[in-house]
């Protein structure tokens, strides 16, 4: 009777069942990996444990630590200065500090390894002009510490973005009260703004950590053995699929632990504070402090965007005569088309899940929504491995057709990995609108589909555009999934950049890197414009 009652009271049953089935499809590769783990021989794990696991674990966590530390430094300090103070170039810096998001970590790593190398511009200049000093600089820069800083330069915008919004939204009243209670500007920041912004900063840091765990190109190039490179090596170089599965599952455990720490921390430290209703007035600085503020904001921009861009541009000019423009055009077309189609699908699917979560209000749909978001935390290599094992099994049933090596499987992997990226802006936009919009819609006679079509699509259109752009940029930069699952003879700008770089032909890879950066930068500037219209940040 109780169950019958519960089913009677459940609204939108068909939608809920549809979302459960769809969620199972998205989680299938992970279930496959866990299932396959049972069949891996015990000796294989013993070998893993005794020989490589410790090394991989140490490197992975050490790299996470360095990248996290520098990302926080490069992200929080400029966000604080730009949000609170007025200084020359503030508006310009506020825009360009986002731009490193347009440069994938692996391009940053290739570029800096070239800049810092023996034949690179710094060491060449020092050798010609200051020979004694140049000896000191003649080092092997392909070290994990250098990699950590380089990755932080590429990833800090995740922290800058959330901190910038959060610092600006903390109500001016809190700041006025703390000033009235005698706190200095720094203490106000340290004791009021920073604690209130901690959940937002932690969610930005979570994205940085997931990117580090997922990173393949940069880590491989620097010769650092992490879980992700270990999966590739075991699988492709040694043909040891058992070790690859075990490493994937260990990596999944690490990722899920971080994921749940983030969720737990977020639920424990979520503050419900009043946001700014008026634009916060900006503090004034004296001449020395103005200079300091500009310098501190310039450092991440210069090293995270400007210098790599100049170096890449220089390489493009040097190799201009050998650029195959037909090939460049084709790869740009490939990249834009696969990223557009995938982004569009991701947005549709994200909207489908979020809308059902909103109208059904069941715990099942909340759980589904949380579970499918974990895809972003799962490294591309793990998703790739899971899908290959799954579809190798399915392909056995279809002798005339093979899924492996098709666009279907590539897009399937993109959807699993990037669904959370597309979901995030739509979710926060849906949450901003009052429940009474839905109730009014229903009261005025709208069914679920019309409610979506006539109310939610138009009032969330900016969030949908934002979601499309951030997903597109991430897909355009994506490397490990594309490397593993792309159809035969299908290249993108990212895979071509990587292939030239691993062949030690970085100058030739520059035009492809430049293309990624240009498309990414234009989209980011457009996105910043949209965000500025939507969020009243001071």
């Amino acid at each position, binding site marked *: 009777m109780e169950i019958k009652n519960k089913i*009677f009271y459940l609204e939108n049953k068909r939608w809920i069942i549809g979302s459960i089935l769809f969620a199972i499809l998205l989680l299938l590769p992970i279930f496959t990996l866990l299932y396959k783990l049972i069949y891996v021989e015990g000796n294989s794990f013993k070998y893993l444990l005794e020989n490589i696991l410790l090394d991989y674990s140490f490197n992975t966590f050490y790299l996470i630590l360095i990248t996290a530390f520098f990302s926080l430094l490069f992200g929080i300090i400029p966000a604080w200065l730009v949000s609170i103070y007025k200084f020359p170039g503030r508006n310009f810096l506020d825009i360009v500090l986002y731009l490193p998001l347009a440069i994938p970590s692996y391009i940053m790593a290739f570029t800096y390894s070239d800049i810092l190398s023996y034949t690179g511009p710094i060491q060449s200049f020092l050798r010609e002009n200051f020979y004694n000093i140049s000896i000191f600089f003649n080092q092997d820069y392909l070290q994990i510490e250098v990699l950590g800083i380089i990755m932080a330069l590429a990833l800090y915008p995740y922290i800058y973005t959330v901190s910038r919004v959060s610092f600006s939204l903390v109500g001016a009243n809190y700041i006025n009260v703390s000033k009235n209670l005698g706190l200095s500007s720094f203490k106000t920041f340290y004791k009021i703004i920073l604690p209130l912004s901690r959940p937002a900063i932690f969610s930005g840091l979570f994205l940085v950590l997931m990117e580090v765990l997922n990173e393949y190109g940069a880590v491989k190039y620097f010769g650092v053995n992490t879980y992700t490179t270990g999966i590739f090596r075991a699988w492709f170089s040694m043909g040891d699929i058992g070790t690859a599965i075990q490493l994937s599952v260990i990596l999944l455990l690490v990722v899920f632990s971080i994921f749940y720490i983030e969720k737990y921390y977020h639920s424990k430290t979520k503050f419900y504070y009043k946001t700014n209703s008026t634009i916060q007035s900006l503090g004034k600085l004296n001449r020395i402090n103005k200079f300091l503020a500009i310098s501190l904001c310039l450092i991440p921009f210069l090293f995270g965007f400007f210098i790599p861009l100049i170096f890449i541009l220089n390489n493009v000019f040097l190799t201009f005569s050998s650029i195959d423009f037909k090939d460049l055009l084709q790869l740009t077309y490939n990249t834009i088309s696969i990223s557009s189609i995938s982004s569009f699908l991701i947005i549709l699917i994200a909207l489908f899940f979020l809308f059902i979560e909103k109208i059904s209000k069941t715990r099942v749909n909340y759980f589904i929504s949380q579970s499918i978001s974990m895809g972003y935390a799962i490294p591309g290599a793990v998703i790739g491995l899971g899908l290959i094992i799954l579809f190798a099994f399915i392909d056995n049933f279809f002798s005339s057709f093979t899924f492996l090596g098709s666009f279907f499987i590539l897009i399937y992997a993109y959807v699993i990995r990037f669904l959370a990226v597309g979901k995030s802006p739509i979710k926060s936009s849906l949450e901003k609108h009052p429940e*009474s919009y839905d*109730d009014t819609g229903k*009261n*005025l006679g*709208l069914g679920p589909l019309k409610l979506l079509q*006539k109310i939610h699509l138009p009032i969330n259109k900016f969030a949908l555009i934002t979601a499309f752009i951030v997903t597109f940029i991430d897909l355009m930069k994506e490397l490990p999934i594309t490397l593993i699952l792309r159809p035969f003879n299908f290249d993108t700008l990212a895979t071509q950049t990587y292939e030239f770089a691993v062949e030690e032909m970085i100058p030739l890879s520059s035009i492809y890197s430049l293309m990624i950066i240009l498309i990414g930068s234009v989209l980011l500037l457009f996105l910043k414009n949209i965000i500025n219209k939507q969020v009243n940040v001071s």
Partner: protein
Amino acid sequence: MYLEVKNLVKYYRKNVPIIKKLNFSVKKGEIISFLGESGSGKTTFLKCISGLEKINSGTISLNNIILNNSNIFIKPQKRNIGFVFQDYPLFPHLNLKDNIIFNLKFKYLKKLDYMISLTGLENLLTRYPHELSGGEQQRACIARALIREPDLLLLDEPFSNLDSNIKLSMRDEIYKIIKETNTTTILVTHDINDSLNIADRILIFKAGVLQQYDDPVNMYCEPANCYCAKVLGDLNQVDVNGKTYYIRPEKIKIVKESIHKVIVDKCFFQGKEYKIIGKLYGYNWHFFSKKPVKKKELLNVDYSSEDLIFFDSMCNNFFE
């Protein structure tokens, strides 16, 4: 009866019911005020009536059609019940006119001009919600609900977001519109003045239970319990022969000599008269005076024993 609510029970957690066996009925064209404290389940009740929430047991029927019982549930889209929400949810991507005619059946379109003039929105049709004041938004929501000729109109705290000047004029306007369209209405509010001004009958609701359902005069003069009495106005407590009685402030007279002597704590001007708060036998008393009095002054007061109201022993719990 037009609207019948029988044994309505609503809960989100079974051991914490929000509405416990509610029974009442409404006649066609009547305005009912549903009065209760914030968080007492008033909005949940309206959502049950409109179909936005399903009831756990009982029956709701409108115009002899069952809307919801243990086997039947008519979707909110099919009920033809107008609902004006507390936060005036006009869709932000539509202008005022498009909001009013949103998903409107063709047959109602001819009423647009009448409804716009009735609500005084003629010059605002092309404005978007953010360009409208709170009062204008509210009138637009009412026009949107009424143009559909609803069988029942539900108003959820329609005046709570308005400042006091506009509130009074809005209250009169809404009353005029509802009576002119002869729309059966349930007004949910926590403000007794709204109820007294608009309602034909008042339903007082506390702790999930109907306390009294009556017309305003009866409710004031013959409250069912001390909670209802207190809701409709100030009460002064007095012990006579070991029993506790209550008396309304306006029934207390200031006299030259009396055995009841009040020590004045506070005296303030209230427009027509001065309101006095003082102590009598350890209780706080409220009453009125034509002249101002000083703090600590001793006043002789008296009352007629016929004006004393007696309640049972549960009364003290209500005031806690």
